């Protein structure tokens, strides 16, 4: 996982890499939460994400709800495998997924 915050502090880019599951989700969640103050645009880059488990989806849902009141959460660069996961779990049409 890589975190990148814009200069004005309003945009936070989180690149999820490899596998996101119960084994590493706590670490990711804490790292993101720490940087979340004042952020109005939270973007998850899934270019290098291979798999996301239900624990990871729970985290995304939590962030989605958190950002609803503060701004927007974007998901970008979703590959086909991850897109299938979103489709099955029904989040595909409810998260803001961009190219």
């Amino acid at each position, binding site marked *: 996982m890589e975190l990148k915050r814009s200069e004005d502090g309003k945009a936070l880019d989180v690149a999820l890499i490899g596998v996101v599951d119960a084994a590493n989700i706590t670490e990711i969640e804490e790292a993101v939460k720490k940087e979340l103050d004042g952020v109005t645009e939270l973007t998850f880059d899934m270019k290098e994400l291979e798999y996301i488990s239900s624990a990871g989806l729970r985290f995304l849902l939590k962030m989605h709800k958190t950002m609803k009141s503060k701004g927007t959460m974007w998901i970008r660069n979703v590959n086909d495998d991850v897109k299938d996961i979103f489709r099955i779990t029904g989040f595909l049409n*409810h998260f803001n997924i961009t190219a």
Partner: protein
Amino acid sequence: MSEKSKSRFPLRLKMVLIVIALSLMLCSVSLIMSNYRFSATNEQSFKDRAKDIANLVVLTVDGDALAAVRDKVMEIYNSVPLDEVVLSDDWGSDEFNAYLAKFESVYDMPEFKKVHEQLSKSQYLGIPTLSSVYTEVYDFERDVNNALYLVDAAPEDDACPPGVTEHVEGADWESVKDEHGQEAYITNTEMYGWLVTASAPVYDSNGNFAGLVAIDLDMNEIKANEQSFITILTVILVSLTAVISIITLVVISIMVVGPIKKLSGAASSYVSNEGTRKFSDIRINSADEIGDLSDAMKKMENDISDYVDNIAVMTAEKERVSAELGVAAKMQADMLPKNFPNLSDLKVFATMTPAKEMGGDFYDFFMTDDNHIGLVMADVSGKGVPAAMFMIVARTLLKIHSTVPGITPSEILTDVNNALCADNPSGLFVTVWLGILNLTTGELISSNAGHEYPAIMHRDGNYELITGDNMPPLAALENIEYSDETIALGKGDRLFLYTDGVPEAKAPDGSRFGADRMLEILNRGRELAPEELLGSVNQEVFDFTGDNDLFDDVTMMSVIWNGR
């Protein structure tokens, strides 16, 4: 073995040796110091005294008479060649007597008699240690370290005869060369024992050196006194040292060794006999390091005892909780319906294999009315007690809402979703596939809230997934409108429902079981009875995960429709 054979060297023995060594050192130093000081003082006072007496005796001697005796003696002595001079070392030998005979004529000199008489008056001085008074002269002419006796104060038989020639050792010779007489000196010979000798010069009427008056003071008595003083001092010091050593040892024993032995004994029995209080019974009240050590050991014992008690309580508590969780997990599994429909038209079978930790998978089936059966396959996100409790709530809500007459699966999901969202602080959600099968027509209406695609097999076809855009899981997002899908089941059609524990089962190398492998197994077992089919999929999943404990519950349901 080496540990055991290590020879013991107890603290007490070490203390004894150290005290004895120190005492001996102290004794020796004080003995040497006092002996040196005592004999030095004694000797100096004797030397001073001897010198005083010599100076006193000189006054009684007629210098001219002594000079005459000296001249006579030296004349005879000088007439003897050096190699014929017989020294006093040969006293009593014939050669010595012959040599002395050469000086016989000196006895007849009136000057000799005069000086003898004058010297003999020294007995009136009343000095008991004054052992001899005599006059002598040195052979300065030939410079061969020889001293010659002139007149002795003793009566003739005891006197040292004139002409006795004595060899003077090197260093002494250098000092006697001074005509004014040498410093008093002390000798210890076999013949006379301890003597202090002092001399003073005698001058004739012209002021020329005539010879030396020498006196000997007997120091044997004073040396004997010195010896007994040292002996007494030694005895006193040794006894005193012994007493001090014993006192020190007793004190150390009581104050240090005893308490330490108590502590070490307590430590040994504590180690071999744990659980009982060993240090707390020890009474050590000294306000020093040993007292501190004792207090620290008592505290440590108490702490350990408390700690052990705590561990016992915690272990018991943990076992209780673990047992209760086991019971809860079993209850959770037992709550799932086991009375599977095995009718001519409909066969249903389902299994739930829980993972190590309590999970949130569940299946369900129930009659919604006389003609419809509800089928549920669901998976709560997360694990443990929260997931299990959430599962019970979700399952109950689904069942209750399904009993509303004429309600469709999407309506049920919409209602249950809003009910769950209303009060869901844990952020858990549950994926649900809900289908209602019309037992008369075989029409299956279903709705999918984020759940794995079910697999369907139409008669003579293969199992395939019912894909499509799912709606989000229940409890994830509020006010979702779920949608229905209708499938008409024909005779012999089969339905396979499952949770992600099947396709996402993980092999030790990290690879996943996958939906394709699942479909392949299903197709291979397309003729199997529901129990056998689930058994075969379960076996394949176990074989795939190998030694890996199941990370997720594996839940499956097989439905066979044999109606119209």
